[in-house]
């Protein structure tokens, strides 16, 4: 009996949890960028999924020039920093100070997403590309068969998430960001360069999405509409975790993807989406601000 249970855990349950974990880490990377941008700028970035796709396409294009995957993992997010910075400065700031900021920025970023998606289609065509898996093979840990690349994704993704949390909650730079999110005018009067912090935070969120794009390209393939598939889940994570909360995005991201992974053992994986969105609806009804507080609070 014990042997049968152990065998079930090793052969069925554990691989499913690890698969869910890899997906969860990727979703959290995208969701954190989304939540920082909302928490600080009060902007819902509807083009976030397309920036995730941008990262994947950039890795694809640069990879075809012969650059190794390891370099791309660092280079692509760095290249996306100025892209995000100028997007915020040139486009978002143009409509940022209007009274109906939520509507105008939502429409602006939504339109930007459409433009980017069509640009990918023009440049790369509609068909998916699948880059080679950078790390092949698998290991067996405690009797559980684990593909190397998924393990790598979990470890690297978790490290980046931890680093982001550390910067935001434990450094002077993070304190400035949180101060600007809590009270913009007060922070400005105390010498925080608010405009730079805004553009910098937007660029940082975009770079995280691009990083996730590079990491996930070998698993999910690269194609123009890839941002759409992913962003729904990221938005759900942000809403359940609490708009603007990094801890919330991590907890909700892990929870929701594990719900999906475990439920997929018993029902068709297609039907796990309604469960996840159902949790979001219940959360909105019972506790609209989500599991955790906002970026500037607590």
């Amino acid at each position, binding site marked *: 009996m014990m042997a049968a249970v152990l065998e079930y855990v090793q052969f069925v349950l554990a691989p*499913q949890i690890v*698969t869910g974990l890899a*997906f969860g880490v990727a979703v959290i990377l995208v969701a954190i960028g989304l939540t920082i941008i909302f928490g600080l700028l009060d902007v819902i970035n509807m083009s976030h999924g397309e920036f995730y796709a941008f990262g994947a396409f950039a890795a694809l294009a640069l990879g075809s020039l012969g650059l190794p995957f390891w370099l791309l993992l660092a280079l692509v997010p760095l290249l996306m920093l100025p892209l995000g910075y100028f997007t915020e400065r040139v486009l978002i700031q143009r409509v940022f100070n209007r009274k109906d900021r939520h509507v105008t920025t939502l429409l602006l970023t939504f339109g930007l997403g459409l433009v980017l998606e069509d640009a990918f289609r023009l440049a790369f*065509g*509609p*068909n998916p590309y699948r880059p080679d898996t950078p790390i092949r093979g*698998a290991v067996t840990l405690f009797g559980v068969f684990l593909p190397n690349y998924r393990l790598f994704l979990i470890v690297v993704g978790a490290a980046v998430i931890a680093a982001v949390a550390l910067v935001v909650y434990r450094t002077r730079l993070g304190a400035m960001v949180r101060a600007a999110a809590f009270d913009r005018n007060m922070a400005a009067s105390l010498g925080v360069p608010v405009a730079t912090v805004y553009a910098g935070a937007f660029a940082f969120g975009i770079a995280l999405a691009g990083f996730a794009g590079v990491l996930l390209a070998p698993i999910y393939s690269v194609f123009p509409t890839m941002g759409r598939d992913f962003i729904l889940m990221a938005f759900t994570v942000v809403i359940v975790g609490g708009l603007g909360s990094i801890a919330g995005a991590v907890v909700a991201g892990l929870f929701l993807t594990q719900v999906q992974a475990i439920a*997929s053992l018993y029902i068709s994986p297609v039907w796990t989406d309604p469960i996840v969105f159902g949790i979001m609806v219940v959360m909105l009804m019972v506790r609209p601000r989500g599991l955790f507080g906002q970026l500037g609070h607590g």
Partner: protein
Amino acid sequence: MKAYQTTVFAALLAATSLTQAQAADPIKIGVVTPLSGTYAGIGQQVRWGLDLAVKEVNAAGGIMGRPVELIYEDEEANPTVAVQKAEKLFEVSKVDFLTGTVSSGSTLAVGQTAERAGKLIATTVSFADSITGDRCSPNVFRVNARAGQQSAALAVWLSKEKPQAKVFYLGPDYEMGRSTVAAFKASAEKVGASTVGEVFAPLDAKDYTQYFGQIRAARPQVLYTSMAGNDTVRLLTQLQEFGLVGNMALVGAAGTVTSQNLAAIGNAAEGFVTGAGYSTQIDTPENKKFLDAFKAAYKADPDLYGTDSYGVIYGYKAAVEKAKSTETDKVREALSGLKWMTPQGEKTIRAGDHQAIQTMYVVRITNGQFKIGGQVSGEDAIGPDTCTRF
């Protein structure tokens, strides 16, 4: 005066175009096929097969002295788009005949468009039994082997190599996937196999790993899948990545692994077994001639889609020459019961449901080659005629 001039001019124009029509007005065949999207690779084979056959037919004097012209439209493997493109070909380009649909959903939808337009279509790719079964149409023909015919051949292999096997089914979640899984399940259970689970994934799913939990939990000896195109590439490489390929026998629909996607799948496809209407290894003079011409033209092997698409042009040619007309009713009459030669051997279109009958092969991938491991005669594979509409 001006109006008079215009009338004369128009009359002259009409007269010239009339005389031209009598001389060598081409027979137009519309092709609605996916040139982009997950089935783009299949559309490529369709295009190669049709182009090659039309080149040969035109070089030999065309059909009844008229050259054949192909007009392509991209349907993106999306039935809605397919219907729009088919309507355009019927109403604007005035095609005489239409072929090329890949997705079973597209074939069913375009079949209804053809009925409204009073034209005939033939699919060379779609698998769903319903197309020549309970959703048959007097205007729709199928020259390739449907799910039931493939299953009959695959079940012969199953009963011999994996008797009483526990089978898990994984199909794409639309007409073709549901139909192929149902057809093989029926054939497999008839020869003593048991079903330990079935699950369907959306067409063009990017990550199949979340489906692996149910497969692991069911511990099947055989995994049946009817994914096609790029979907198979992702499914099989991910199965291999997660160490599931060695544990069970992989079998599937004829279109799951073909010459078109084999290279991208790599050795994860080794040992895959299917029941198919074509293999490059068929040892007949007709196939040899076709194979040489295809390779010379495209530097690639034909797969079942390319071969069936090549064959449909010769089938249509035979029917038009028998009917001595391209009129819908006369060609339909000529196609029903038609026998003609293809690289796969002789095919016969059953009059009762418009389904082609042909020899079926058990095909196993060995060292990257589609090795033939057995065959089932056309009569044994075809199954009952369930079409009641005509």
